[in-house]
């Protein structure tokens, strides 16, 4: 994403962009703190053009997600206290956020945290029909059942494992 946006005039700023990405990798999501905002796919772009303030584009997961304002504030704080006092944060809506943008590291961290990651790709049109096979993040059993389409935050649904009896959150596929 960074590289495709680069032009000859911005090549000199590549180390700066990398530095900002690594700063952002340490900004946790306020609701699921094992995930960084980069793991979640919320950070869309980092642009550093010489002579202009660095710009970080972020996108909300759900349009009503109350965490969006907190995430924006946390990112601004990390940038400003991390040596980029002039950095700007922009919110973009298009293209809309997708659970497909969770990184592989993010999926692993979710599972270790006790949250089942999205089971299928949004690209699969069958995902809104028929039963999904969701593995229990605790014991790995696929004998699980949905308790509710919705859970503790907009991005999660509520499941339980019928093998080990563990109730767990499932990160919705959207």
């Amino acid at each position, binding site marked *: 994403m960074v590289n495709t946006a680069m032009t000859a005039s911005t090549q000199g700023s590549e180390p700066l962009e990398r530095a900002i990405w690594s700063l952002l990798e340490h900004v946790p999501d306020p609701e699921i703190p094992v995930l960084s905002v980069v793991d979640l796919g919320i950070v869309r772009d980092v642009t550093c053009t010489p002579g202009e303030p660095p710009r970080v584009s972020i996108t909300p997961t759900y*349009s009503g997600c109350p965490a969006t304002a907190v995430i924006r504030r946390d990112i601004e704080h990390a940038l400003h206290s991390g040596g980029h006092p002039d950095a700007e944060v922009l919110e973009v809506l*298009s293209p*809309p956020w*997708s659970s497909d943008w969770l990184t592989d590291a993010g999926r692993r961290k979710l599972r270790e945290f006790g949250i089942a990651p999205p089971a299928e790709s949004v690209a699969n049109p069958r995902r*809104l029909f028929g039963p999904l096979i969701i593995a229990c993040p605790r014991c790995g059993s696929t004998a699980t059942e949905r308790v*509710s*389409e919705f859970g503790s935050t*907009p991005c999660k649904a509520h499941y339980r494992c019928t093998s080990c009896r563990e109730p767990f959150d499932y990160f919705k596929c*959207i």
Partner: protein
Amino acid sequence: MNAALFQYLLRLGDTSLVLGQRLGEWIGHAPALEEDLGLANLSLDLIGQARLLLTYAGEVEGRGRDEDALAYFRNEDEYRNLTLAEQPNGDFAQTIVRQCLLDAWQHEVYTALSGSSDARLAGIAAKSLKETKYHLRYSAGWLVRLGDGTAESQRRAQRALDELWRFTAEMFVADAVDAEIAAAGIGPPLESIAAGWVERVSAVLGEAKLVRPTDVPYSWHGKRGQHSEHLGYLLAEMQSLQRAHPGAQW
């Protein structure tokens, strides 16, 4: 054009806001904890959509009104939501019927608007459509469970459908605003989305073993500011704090 676009954005945003506010009334009162969470989540998404739409409406209007000014400081006759959205929650069946009819409407509208000539609106619609698909799966799933459930749940679901069906005609009757928006390529001609809505709703009603009521003439024009008696009470509750303490924040 800006005047028509402002009105059009208010219609979309107010419908989401009023429906979201109604669903919020269920918090702490739903039949089960899972449905309490579910209805609250729907409400949250809808209010989020309303914020995006009303913020844009305020910019189009160009009089310096932001989302809060539009939400809290307009009176009933300045609201432009569909009359169906403001109807009381009633029992759980009535809430689910109202939700399913409006989810199916939003599904058609947002699908069409995702290709709008207005890039900002297209972005909001594409974002909202993802949420609406999830809402529709929830409300349609419940409608089937209620309609094809016990004799009592079937009776209540059919009663709610018979009560609310008369408000659906307003969705597809175009006026000057709709015509101007369609001509500019911003929004779909309403007749073009009616067929998709009827097909989708009929399929759910069939599976739910519910009888589609007869279409009747209607006299509600919420999208022109002529509402049923229910909206004023909803706004009174929603706006009272900001009216008493303008600009209050926490």
